[in-house]
């Protein structure tokens, strides 16, 4: 279970650039939840993920992960329990190292002086073949040679290799072409389901926000303004969501991409 209690974050406090990115956000995520998060640019969605990962210290509030208070724990120590994917497929893997070496770091097994064993290699091969991209036959090639979609799929595999307590997906298909995005989304769904991973997914695609998962959050100006699950969510359409946004935020959704539910680069 992931619990956020009254968390606040203001950037550049006390300057003309002051930006209240998270305002008193409280959220409880149950084990096995798959939550989609939508909201206009600058709403604070990525900042919410940064807070969970510990990229900065909170101004106020508390974060509890699986019963443990992690508010003061540095980023790299939390990382073992948190998997994260970014929009940029290049961010999740080391381009100068081979697929196998990247996976070895993600698997995190063995002591500092251990090397990749034949058994490790066999396990990597099996997991890679689940991606259906033929990467299992290219394990010694540098990751820099892979396409964006392949790299994002590999990052997904790396982030979930040791099953994380929570998986954070930050528009992780937005930089891919539509076909590849579809494929990576499908992989995401199956990996999350098979491993019963608790997952939060930011998306620009209203349709996948409603199709995937069991709960949807809408964020605006540093706050969660709408939180929907169960039957009510089952009945929602994209039109309902945009109405909701207008009603709750007092503005129209300014993002065409979001209205149309297109999930690719213009």
């Amino acid at each position, binding site marked *: 279970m992931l619990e956020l209690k009254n968390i606040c974050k203001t950037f550049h406090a006390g300057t003309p650039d002051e930006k209240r990115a998270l305002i008193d956000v409280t959220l409880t995520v149950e084990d096995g939840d798959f939550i989609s998060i939508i909201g206009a640019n600058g709403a604070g969605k990525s900042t919410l993920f940064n807070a969970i990962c510990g990229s900065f210290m909170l101004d106020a509030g508390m974060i509890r992960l699986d019963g443990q208070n992690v508010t003061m724990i540095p*980023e*790299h*120590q939390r*990382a*073992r329990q948190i*998997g*994260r994917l970014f929009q940029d497929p*290049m*961010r*999740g*893997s*080391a*381009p*100068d*190292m081979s697929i196998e*070496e*990247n996976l*070895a*770091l*993600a698997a*995190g097994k*063995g*002591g*500092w*002086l*251990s*090397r*990749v064993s034949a058994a490790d290699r066999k396990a990597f091969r099996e997991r890679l073949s689940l991606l259906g991209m033929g990467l299992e036959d290219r394990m010694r090639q*540098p990751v*820099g*040679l892979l396409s964006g979609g392949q790299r994002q799929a590999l990052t997904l595999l790396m*982030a979930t290799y040791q099953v994380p307590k929570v998986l954070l997906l930050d528009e992780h298909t937005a930089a891919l072409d539509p076909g590849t995005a579809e494929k990576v989304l499908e992989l995401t769904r199956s990996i999350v389901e098979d491993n019963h991973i608790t997952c939060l997914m930011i998306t620009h695609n209203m349709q996948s926000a409603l199709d995937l998962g069991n709960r949807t959050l809408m964020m605006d100006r540093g706050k969660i303004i709408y939180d929907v699950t169960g039957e009510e969510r089952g009945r929602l359409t994209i039109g309902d969501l945009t109405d909701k946004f207008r009603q709750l935020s007092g503005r129209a959704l300014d993002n065409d991409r979001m209205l149309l539910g297109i999930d690719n680069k213009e």
Partner: protein
Amino acid sequence: MTLDKFLALGQTAMELGLVNALTVLSLFLSYSMLNVCDLSTDGCFTLGAAVGALVAIAGYPWLSLPAAMLAGMISGFVTATLQTRMGVQSLLAGIVVNTGLYSVNMALTGNKANLNMNKIPTIFTMVKNLLKDTPLAGQSALLVMLVTVALVVLFMCWFLKTKLGLAIRATGSNADMVRSSSINPTFTTTVGLCVSNAFTGLSGCLMAQQAKSFDINMGSGMVTVALASLLIGGVFFAKHRPIPLRAAGVVLGAILFRLVYGLALRLNMPAFMLKLVSSVIVVIAISGPYLRRQVPLMIRRWQAAREGRNADA
């Protein structure tokens, strides 16, 4: 040039090239793998030479090698701590340590700019004695260097494939990803610089013992010379090639650099040109690819300007 002279030239180039190769391998770790340009190299090289010379003069030639490596490691630790834990920019950390090391080295030698090892046993004289009356006796210096460099290359190939080595390489390639593997980049940078500077220290130690003398300025410009050799080595085996090949390429680069330099001396190039030559090589190797990318742009500008003139006419 007679064959004899040429062979002698080749042998000197081999011996000096192999001594330098240790510093080049050190930069292979810090510059190519960890992506840190470690400007403390000059001072660290001299530090290794000073410590090694003092220990050898005290009567422990064998001990001089680990002692010089330990000294290098400590220097690397300081450089790493400055840049990872104390907010000093990476380049500045190296420069500051390099400057400080001058005083440290002077203090170590008791304010003497030179130490003479003519009459004392060094690693090289010890091995020469061991090999007395064997066919290898004449080549003992070369042998010492070959074995040392081979051991360091083997170590490097092993080390860079361990989990620690992978983490160090990943730190240079994508530090975000290291963090998300629950590894602290501060730790990997520190270990990387410690190991790398250990070899720089060893390199200085062997250089001094081979020359049978220590000089406070012997490390000056070393970082550029080593970088030049590293970049020449990179020409043989590019970034995506297996690490053992790249490490071998780096050693080859160091020897080749010395060979070309030796030849240039023969052709009456003054010895003081060494540093300018290495500077130019580094500039060409680094800015060459950049300039090559600019060429199409310049051609298009030139064409556009010409068309513009034609249109006006």
